C-alpha cells in the first residue's frame, strides 16, 4: 500500500510557513500579534492576575448592571374562595368534617333568627 503523495509545491510552501511561524514564535512576535488581534489591548497592563479587582474599570463601563432594575412583583388580589381554599389545604378529613358540622348547624340557626 503506497502513501499518499505530497505535492512538491505544497511541501515547499508548508516549509516556508513553518519557518516563518518558528521565527515569530522565537522572537515573541506571535504572542504580541495574537494579543493585538484577539483583544485589541495589552493584557499585561489591563489585568493583574494576582489581584481580583479590575485595574482598568473603563473596560466595563458599558455593561455596568446598575441600570438594571428588578421588576416590581404585584400579587393579584385573592378571591375569598382562594383564601378559604388555602386555609383548608392542610386540614385533614376529620377537621373538614368538623367545619361542615358547625356550619350545618349555623345556617338553620340564622333562619330562625330572622
Amino acid at each position, binding site marked *: 500500500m503506497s502513501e499518499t503523495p505530497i505535492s512538491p509545491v505544497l511541501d515547499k510552501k508548508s516549509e516556508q510557513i513553518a519557518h516563518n511561524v518558528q521565527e515569530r514564535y522565537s522572537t515573541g512576535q506571535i504572542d504580541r500579534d495574537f494579543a493585538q488581534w484577539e483583544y485589541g489591548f495589552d493584557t499585561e497592563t489591563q489585568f493583574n492576575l494576582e489581584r481580583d479587582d479590575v485595574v482598568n474599570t473603563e473596560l466595563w463601563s458599558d455593561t455596568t448592571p446598575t441600570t438594571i432594575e428588578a421588576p416590581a412583583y404585584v400579587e393579584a388580589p385573592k378571591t375569598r374562595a382562594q383564601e378559604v381554599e388555602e386555609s*383548608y389545604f392542610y*386540614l385533614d378529613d376529620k377537621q*373538614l*368534617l368538623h367545619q361542615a358540622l358547625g356550619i*350545618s348547624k349555623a*345556617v*338553620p340557626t*340564622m333562619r330562625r*333568627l330572622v
Partner: protein
Amino acid sequence: MSDMFKKALSLLTGSPADTTRPLKKLTERELIELEAEIGGQLFGAIPAGHRREFFCLDEHTWIWHEEWVDENRQRQVTSTRYEIHDTGILKAQDGKVYKFIEGAELRNLVLAIRLYYEAVARGIYRRDPMTGAPLSETPPATI
C-alpha cells in the same frame, strides 16, 4: 297621626316591624329558595339552559340539584344529597349510591359549604359570618 292614616301607611309601606325585619314574613321554604339561588352561583357561571341549586336543607342535609335540557331536548336532572354525620359525610346521587366522601371531594364540598354560609349570612341574613352579629345597616363613615 290618625289610626286610619297609620293603617294606610302600613299597607303601602309595610309595618315598622316589616321594614326592619323584612325576612320575618318568609317561610323557611322561601328562605331556602333564596339561599339556593346564591348557592347555585358558588360554582361559577351557570350554562344557558341550566338550573343549579345548592342549599342547606336542614342541620344534617345539603342538596346539590341541577337540571338542564340535553341535545335531544330531553330534560336531565341530577340531584345529590349530602348527609352530615358525626362520623363522615354520606353522599347519595339520584338516590342510588351511598358512600362516605373523603379527600379532595370532601374538601371541595366543605369549601362550598363554607362559601355558602358566608354568602347567605351577609347577603340574606345581614350577619357577620365570623361573629354572627348583625351587620350595620349604614356603611362606615369615610374620611
